[in-house]
């Protein structure tokens, strides 16, 4: 099928079937409902469904699947008529590259990777390092012990970006600060994103060794970090979405802020651009400048330092602070 007519400008609302935009979404492992990265993408999709009347189809990756399985997933979405495809996660890069080349009429959004480029691919990347800088600064400002922690779920380049920003943010505030860093597992063992028991143990260790704020960039293992924070009466920082809203009620009060990665905005923007016929191939960086990343203030725990954080934010936007992507 041809994709161009479905992305006619102004196809908002549910007025006519011909104008309905069809969007297929291929999630990374975990899929919708992971309360994290994939869910953020799903939120954007839901919004597009509600506001733009998009017709959507979703499919989720299986742990340890073959490369061909990812290709096949994208192809099947296309075969089913979903000629705009969002691939969630860098693992899809090779598949997108291949399938996009074979289907030049289909528009792709590839989240978190610039590895596949093409005239019909939009790469949505996020400046997690910049957002993490701000929460790192917040951690340092809030810390009384001069000791903070970072827990990464799996030791990948992506999570290292979080670590790099966080550490720099903390050190910028307090050059003498101690930053404890722990990754729960090494790839290809991705269980570190779903093992709260490990997250809890690691966080306990950090708190008992003096940290009073721990940043959990660990997907589902973050729940264990919050539990540990609650038990120790210390602070924690959430990731991806505003976890002070989504985490279990009894631990929400330990989450002083979350580093927000607006994947939902990215996916929604992508779909919107299609409906408006404004698709632009190439990399679109969601950084602080465009509010693609940021920090949350739910609970009012960091209201006192918000001014300082916003100052840092401005410096980053102005290029006065350059946040590295590697620790």
């Amino acid at each position: 099928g041809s994709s161009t007519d479905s992305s006619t400008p102004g196809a908002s609302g549910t007025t006519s079937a011909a104008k309905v935009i069809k969007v297929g979404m291929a999630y990374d492992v975990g899929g919708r409902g992971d309360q994290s990265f994939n869910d953020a993408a799903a939120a954007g999709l839901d919004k597009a469904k509600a506001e733009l009347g998009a017709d959507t189809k979703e499919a989720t990756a299986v742990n340890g699947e073959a490369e061909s399985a990812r290709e096949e997933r994208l192809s099947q979405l296309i075969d089913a008529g979903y000629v705009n495809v969002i691939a969630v996660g860098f693992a899809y890069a090779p598949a997108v590259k291949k399938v996009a080349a074979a289907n030049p009429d289909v528009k792709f959004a590839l989240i978190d990777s610039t590895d596949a480029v093409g005239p019909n691919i939009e790469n949505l990347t996020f400046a997690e390092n910049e957002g993490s800088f701000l929460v790192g600064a917040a951690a340092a400002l809030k810390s009384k012990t001069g000791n903070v922690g970072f827990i990464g779920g799996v030791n990948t380049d992506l999570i290292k970006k979080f670590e790099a920003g966080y550490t720099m943010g903390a050190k910028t505030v307090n050059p003498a600060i101690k930053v404890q860093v722990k990754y729960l597992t090494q790839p290809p063992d991705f269980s570190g994103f779903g093992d709260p028991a490990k997250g809890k143990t690691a966080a306990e260790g950090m708190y008992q060794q003096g940290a009073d704020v721990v940043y959990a960039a660990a997907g589902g293992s973050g729940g264990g970090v919050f539990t540990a924070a609650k038990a120790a009466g210390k602070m924690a920082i959430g990731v991806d979405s505003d976890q002070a809203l989504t985490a279990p009620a009894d631990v929400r009060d330990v989450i002083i802020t979350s580093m927000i990665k607006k994947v939902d905005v990215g996916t929604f923007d992508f779909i919107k651009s299609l409906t408006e016929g404004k698709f632009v191939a190439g990399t679109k960086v969601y950084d602080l400048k465009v509010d693609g990343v940021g920090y949350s203030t739910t609970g009012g725990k960091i209201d006192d330092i918000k001014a300082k954080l916003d100052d840092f934010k401005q410096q980053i936007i102005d290029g006065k602070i350059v946040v590295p992507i590697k620790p």
Partner: protein
Amino acid sequence: MSTTGLKAGAKAITGAVRKPSLSPARIALIAVIAVFLIAVLRVVTGANDLASSGALAAAIGLAVPIGMAGLGGLWSERAGVVNIGLEGMMILGTWGAGFFGWHYGPWAGLLGAMFCGMVGGAIHALATVVFGVDHIVSGVAINIIGYGTAKYLAARTFTGSPGGGPTQSPQLGKLPSLSIPGVSSGLGSLEKREIFFVSDLAAILRAMVTNLSFVTLIALAMVALTWWVLWHTTFGLRLRSCGESPVAAESLGVNVYKYKFIAVLVSGSLAGLGGGYLALVAANIYRDGQTGGRGYIGLAAMIFGNWRPGGLVGGAALFGYTDAVQLRGGGTTVHAMLLLLAVLTIGIGAWQLLRKHRVIKGVIAISAGVIVAVWYSISETVPDALTGMTPYVATLLVLAFASQRLRMPAADGLPYRKGEGH
């Protein structure tokens, strides 16, 4: 294909195991030596987390699910059924905990976990006991089925639930835990003084009386109960006889199928309990892939422990402790352990060289020890990518250094058909 494996190299005890190979006194002695070594290491390296009550409490938390899986393995293998499907049963347990725990409260969750694990056990029993299928095949299949079923059911049952989703359950209620207030704080102050050995001992005791989950107590009770049931009751004697010589048992009127079946069911429910612990105690939530291979580790702990409850606890504790220490202290604590490794290796090498006159072995061991020592002295910490290996390396090293006096039940893994063995 038989599943018993080759005996080559395994210096199995062929003759007399008259008493349990380790008397309580010897176990106590080993424990004291271990504490002493850790105390020395802590003082020398300054890696205080080696013997903090926090680390030990975490160790307990990490050891319990492994221990329960291992205990499940022990029941099954004592009755002669090899159970490599523990991981699958454990996974089913996590889902059971999530589902029942969410709907009916955490205690029901615990029972649900055991029930779901038992369902896995029932499949294994059906395949191995009733159909006489190779035990390893059945176990491998159950791991696959457990993995798929839990994910499938999670997606089916948790999607759209409050705070849950296709890959995780809603938050589960908490199970009570236990602290002995006065003792705990007293030990705490003793621990803080960092007195050699005394503080270390205090830390251990403190970990055992502070915030101890009831499920941990249940798990410990299960170990004791297993020991008592299997070695001190009629039921246990009959069950073990099915693992040692089912035809002899049959000839004395023991219904071998029945005991094997029960054993595998218990095995499944214990593995399920381990999964339940992960979901209800360690995390308060079901998550896909939460077990992370702990079922296999449990199996390893059971073999490590020579198919005995006490040894199994030792294996699970070793793994739990090293895992806790690496997760908490990361590089620095593991770095401290390098020193211990270096000293031990050099010591063993010297002993080989001087007492046994095994030149090559001695020289190799000493050089290995020296390399580790050099590594220790020129580095500040162990890279994070490597610390995660600590529990695995430690288990392997202990197995390689400790002499292998393992003896599995004589008929473990062998197919049994009624009336065909005579």
